[in-house]
Each structure stands twice: as structure tokens, then as C-alpha cells.
């Protein structure tokens, strides 16, 4: 039993930390730390900076240009990124489609797509969910019919994150409508510029444009864009779902946000003293801080147990991680109280330096709170995660 990092890990951490301190643009950091909205350019800029350093494929084997890091190193890297406040590397290319291409793609697909993913030459999005499918993913209806050396795709995807920026979408499509639900599904890569694709924004409850509906109307997709075998797509999707859980607990970010929360609660007053010194409020913050401490150890336990591929315990990490994130935003809103009310999209978009109200810290907190209700819904709702724990761990 030893909860300390090894000397090598500590050296690695220092290396990562100095690199990030030297290379993270301060305007990007400012946006992240202050809960502002990130533009496409923001994401791409940071991705390319990391790509130059060779630190994008943190879960990739070295043969594809990955870092080949151990699970501990990868965890350290993620913690350091969260600590300093880097933009996210969006998962759709690097952590979602890439592992599928590596495992099931042909050589040409690997040669073409993987370097472009590493370098963010393509912006990827995910075409899984459909209206009506939700947690029951395999009930998808989007059809792909073979027509010579093309598939003709018709149907609709939804909840497609940041599809408005996307160059490519990876889709689950139904190629055999007569097969059983999970069979007859194929995994297709589709160029978003193909005629017949329409993207319709879905505005979130904080009025951010984060997800979309994507419509396919007789979209011609070359057969070489099929991954693996026809009608085997469900297998690949399940493989990918296992990968989606990386850093799902987001403990690093939670620790950073806890500091933000304490700073805000130290600034706001209750009964003439800083709110953070109010016994009732401090008790709530302490309870949350302890939950974060516990989850950090739980994550490390999972990492140390296997090769960094959490099994059903990932459901625990997802549930606890999102509960913590949501609780953080709740306590932030509580801290600023009435100051949560003003709504200033221009400030959130970075169009103005200061918010309409004098408290810039407070300006983003209600949108943040409302937006983060999604975390217990997406990526398999927390109810679905409990079903998984029930079945896979508890055997009920």
C-alpha cells in the first residue's frame, strides 16, 4: 500500500506542469477558468499546440503516434491539464473514432485518418443517438442502402455535439433492416460536406449552441468509408463505449472548481463574514470536498487495478463524478445568490471584457449550473449506469 507517486511519475508530472505553464495561451486559460464559452478556434488552437508536443494520443499506442503512457501517467497528464485549466481535447476523434479505426479499420483508413485526427485536421462528431433511441441506442433507424460502391444514407441523428463545426461524422447506420435489433448495424464514416446533410442547432437551456440534429437525405457515402464488416457495427460501438469512459470522473476539474467555489464563497458575505466561514455553508463545501477526496482515491484504485480500462466500475466513476460536478455548480449558484439571475451571453461569448453586473465571477454560474444538468443524462444516463452496476457488479 503506497499512495505516493513514484519518483518517475513525479518527474513526469513536473515535466507536464512546466510544459503546460509555458505553452497554454493565457486567453484560453482565462476562458476555461471563468466558465466562458469556447469557440471552434479555441479548441483547434490548443489541440494543435499539444499535437506539436506529441501529447494528443494519450491513450494511443506509440505505433500510431500515441504517447504510450502508463495509466498513471495518463492520469497525471489529465490532472495537470485540469489543474491549470486547458481547453478539453474533444473526445470524438481522439478517444472515440480513433480506437475503432485502430482496432477494426483497414490499413488505408488507419494511414489516412489517424494522423489527421492527431493533428486536428478534421473536426469529428458522433452520429449515434437518434430521436426516440436515447438510452436504447440499438433501436436506431437511420438506413444505409448499398448502391454500387456507395451507401445511400437516409435518416436523422440527434444530440450531435458541436456538429456545426464538424468535417466528419462517424455513424451507426442500419444496413440490414430485417436482422435483430443489435445486428444489421454498420459503422460508417461520413464527410459532413456531402450533399444531403443538414445540421439544425439545438439550443441548450443556457442558450448555448452545443448540440445539433443532423439530417441525412440520400447522402452518398463511398463503401471504403465502412469500418470493418457490414452489419458488425454494434460490436465496434460497444468496444468504443468502453473507451468513452476515460477520465470520466473528472476529479482534476472538480478540484479546480472547488478552489473556484471557495474563492467565490470567501468573497461573498453572510452576516458580515465571508460565506465560507458560515458553519452551514462550510459544512456543505466540506462534505463535497470530502466526496472529491474519496473519488480521487477511488479513481486511483481503479487505475491501479487494471490496465487503465475500467470495466463496470466506470459507471460508479461516471455517477459520482457527475454528482460532484453538479453539486459544485449548485453550491456556486448558492454562493452568489441573487447574482445568479442576470444573464449576459455577450460576456460568456467573450464579446465583452466585463459582465453587465460588476461581478464577473458570478456571471457564468447559473448558465454553468443549468448546462451541467446534462452530465447526469448524457453518456448513458446515471439511471442507466446504475442498471449496469446492478447487473454487471451486483449480479441482480
Amino acid at each position, binding site marked *: 500500500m503506497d499512495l505516493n507517486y513514484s519518483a518517475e511519475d513525479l518527474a513526469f508530472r513536473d515535466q507536464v506542469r512546466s510544459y503546460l505553464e509555458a505553452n497554454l495561451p493565457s486567453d484560453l486559460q482565462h476562458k476555461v477558468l471563468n466558465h466562458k464559452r469556447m469557440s471552434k478556434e479555441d479548441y483547434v488552437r490548443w489541440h494543435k499546440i499539444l499535437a506539436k508536443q506529441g501529447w494528443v494520443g494519450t491513450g494511443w499506442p506509440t505505433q500510431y503516434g500515441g504517447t504510450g503512457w502508463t495509466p498513471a501517467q495518463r492520469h497525471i497528464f489529465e490532472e495537470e491539464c485540469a489543474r491549470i485549466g486547458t481547453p478539453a481535447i474533444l473526445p470524438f476523434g481522439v478517444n472515440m473514432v480513433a480506437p475503432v479505426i485502430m482496432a477494426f479499420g483497414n490499413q488505408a483508413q488507419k494511414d489516412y485518418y489517424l494522423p489527421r485526427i492527431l493533428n486536428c485536421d478534421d473536426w469529428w462528431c458522433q452520429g449515434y*443517438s437518434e430521436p*426516440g433511441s*436515447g*438510452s*436504447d441506442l440499438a*433501436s436506431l433507424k437511420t438506413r444505409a442502402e448499398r448502391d454500387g460502391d456507395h451507401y445511400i444514407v437516409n435518416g436523422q441523428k*440527434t*444530440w450531435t455535439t458541436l456538429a456545426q463545426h464538424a468535417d466528419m461524422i462517424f455513424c451507426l447506420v442500419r444496413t440490414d433492416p430485417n436482422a435483430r435489433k443489435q445486428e444489421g448495424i454498420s459503422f460508417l464514416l461520413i464527410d459532413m460536406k456531402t450533399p444531403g446533410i443538414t445540421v439544425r442547432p*439545438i*439550443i*441548450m*437551456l*443556457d*442558450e448555448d449552441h452545443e*448540440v445539433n440534429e443532423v439530417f441525412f437525405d440520400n447522402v452518398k457515402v463511398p463503401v471504403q468509408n465502412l469500418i470493418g464488416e457490414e452489419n458488425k457495427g454494434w460490436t465496434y460501438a460497444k468496444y468504443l463505449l468502453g473507451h468513452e469512459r476515460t477520465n470520466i470522473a473528472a476529479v482534476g476539474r472538480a478540484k479546480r472548481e472547488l478552489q473556484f467555489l471557495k474563492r467565490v464563497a470567501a468573497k*461573498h*458575505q*453572510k*452576516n*458580515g463574514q465571508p*460565506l465560507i466561514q458560515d458553519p*452551514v*455553508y462550510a459544512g456543505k463545501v466540506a462534505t463535497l470536498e470530502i466526496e472529491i477526496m474519496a473519488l480521487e482515491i477511488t479513481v486511483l484504485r481503479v487505475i491501479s487495478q487494471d490496465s487503465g480500462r475500467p470495466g463496470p466500475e466506470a459507471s460508479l466513476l461516471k455517477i459520482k463524478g457527475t454528482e460532484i460536478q453538479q453539486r459544485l455548480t*449548485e453550491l456556486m*449558484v*448558492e454562493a452568489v*445568490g*441573487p*447574482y*445568479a*439571475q*442576470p*444573464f*449576459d451571453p455577450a460576456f460568456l461569448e467573450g464579446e465583452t471584457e466585463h459582465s*453587465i*453586473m*460588476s*461581478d464577473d465571477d458570478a456571471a457564468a454560474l*447559473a*448558465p454553468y*449550473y*443549468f*448546462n451541467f*444538468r*446534462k452530465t*447526469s*443524462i*448524457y453518456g448513458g*444516463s*446515471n*439511471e442507466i449506469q*446504475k442498471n449496469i452496476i446492478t447487473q454487471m457488479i451486483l449480479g441482480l
Partner: protein
Amino acid sequence: MDFTLTQEQTQFAEAIRRWTEKDYGFEHRKRIIESPAGVSAEAWAALAELGALALPVPEDQGGFNGSAIDLMVVMQELGRGLVIEPYFSTVLGAEFLKRAKAHFDVLEQVATGEIRLATALHEQQSRHDLSDICMTAEKTTDGYRLNGKKTIVLHGAQADKLIVSARSSGQQRDKSGILLFLVDADAAGITRHDYRTIDGQRAADIIFEQVNIPAMAMLGREDGGWELLDAVSDYGVSLLCSEAIGIMETTIAATLEYLKTRQQFGVPIGKFQVLQHRMADMFMEMEQARSMATLAAVKVSSDSTEERRRTLSAAKARIGQAARYIGQQAVQLHGGMGVTNELPVAHMFKRLTMIELSLGDTDHHLARFVAQPGFKNAA
């Protein structure tokens, strides 16, 4: 012991509900939010027509002298309709004037819908403590001079007149030295910054620079400012509680409907026991909250200040808890659809959340409840 509404109350409620359903639909409301004005003159006229604006006004000023229960009925319906017009701020303003027994002309104008009111009580440092006032009221030869800044004044830029709290003496958070004034919203020296709130309403930051007002602008007694402010704030709490109940009803109805129609794994998701029990919990929260909103509307007129404070704080705390649970769970049960701006449920959630932190949040009112002598004396 009688929990039934009078026939008049029921008819009033039905009339407002018919209006919101017919003329204040979801898309219409959205356009009002997006409009530069942020409120609807048409809706205001309709509220006047319906008698909702005359309701809180005394009979001598052309009103119906409605009771807190009458207002409860109205606020529930406006909650159901997610109405974002300056009704709450105007009723609250009128309550100041009623209690101060002054400015009858203004009350008359409220009754006819000629003017809107807003209450400028909150300052940057106040958080939930309305006695935390830095704004100064300096005595002049013929009145007072106001200096300071009020923030998050609900519908402050849409109002014709403001009720303003200021301090003639004492330290921040002293209960003495607080004065209340009725001020023209466009008086010289006043600057208003209008902005949206996240729940679709409007609010303003208002700067008062050397604003001279006559002596008669002061409301009530020189030594009674805090008592008046505290009492009217409790009245506002009662209104908000009732609004919240209306929203909870529609939130739960919308969620139930979603559970019955939305299919997953070949069955309506309302067949999953975990979601069923979640709904049962939401329902129970609403019923407990409804009981407290009713109690609040009854006790807000109590002769005992302590009983009023104790009950209103209990109600606000209980309703805040229910509002959070019901709002969050309604969104959760709606799944992805719940976190978009496209369904009413998101807007109900946002309004419920903002009600929770208006006029004192749950912790504030729990502490106020505890601070009443009755809490420890009973021990």
C-alpha cells in the same frame, strides 16, 4: 377549517388560466423575451382587463382589496403560464404603498394598469439580507437626497416608479436608520441598466446620484422602515411561493406526460419503477410545498410578527427545497430533451431555480426560522 376557495377565487383563476393558455403560449412568451422591451404591453392590458391589477389595490383606490389568498390564486396561475410580466414587482410595490397608507394616486394608477412598479431593495453586498444597505438618504431642507446603487431590481427598467430602500443612519445591516421611498423611475440623477435574467425576466442595476426627492416620498414612519420592508418582503415571499406551486404543477404534469409517451426498450419509460418512484417523490414534494404555500398566504397577514416571520421563512425554505428537487428531476426524467431550451420544462426549471434564490434562499430562511424566539423557547 376550510381549504376550499371561494367561487370568485375559482372564477378568477379560471379566467387567468384561459388567458395564459390562449394568449400567452410558449412561442409567444419566447418572442416577448427576445423583444427589446422584454415585457408585453398587450399582456399588461389583459391583466388589467382581467382585474388582476386591481386585485391588490384597496377599494377606495378603485381596487378589489384582494386578500393574500386571492393573490395566491393569481400567482399560481401566472406560475402555470410562466408569465414574465412585471406583475410580481408591481404587486409588491403596491403592498408598500398600501401598508404605508400613502400615494393613493399611484395605487389608483396601478389598479387601472396605467403604471408599473418595481422595488429596488437589493445592493451588491446584500446577498439575502435586505437590511444590508449602503445607499444613503441624506436629509435636505425639503426632503431627501439619495446616493447609491441598487442591483438586480426586477423589472426596474420597465417600471414607472420605484420603491427604494436607503439608510439615513446606522451601519450596514443595522435594522434602524432604514427608510423607504417612492421615487419616479426617470427622476434626475437616476440611471438604469436593463438586462435579461436567465429565467426570461428583466432586471436592472440602478444608480442614484444626488437624486432629490420630496419629504412626502418617504413611506411609513421614520423609525419603521425595517418593519415595513421586512413585512412586505414576507408578502413577496408568499407571492413567490404561490407562483412556485403553479410551476410545480405544470412541471409535474409535463413530466408525467413525457413518461407516458416516451418509449425506450419498447415500453413507455413511465413503466420503469425507478422513474415511477422519482415521480412519486416529486409529487410528495409538491404536496408538502403546497401546504406551506397555503399556510404562508394565511399567516402573512398574522398580527404576530414572530408568527409571520416564522411561517413565511418555513414556507420559503420548504418550497425552495421542493423547487430544486422537482426542477432537477423533471429535467432528468426528460433526458436530453430536458436540457434544451425547446421544451417548457427547461423554462419551468429555470424559473423555479430563480425563485429559490429570490427574497432569501433556503439557508437564509432556515436561519431566520431558527432565529425566531419560538424555535428555542419551545425547547
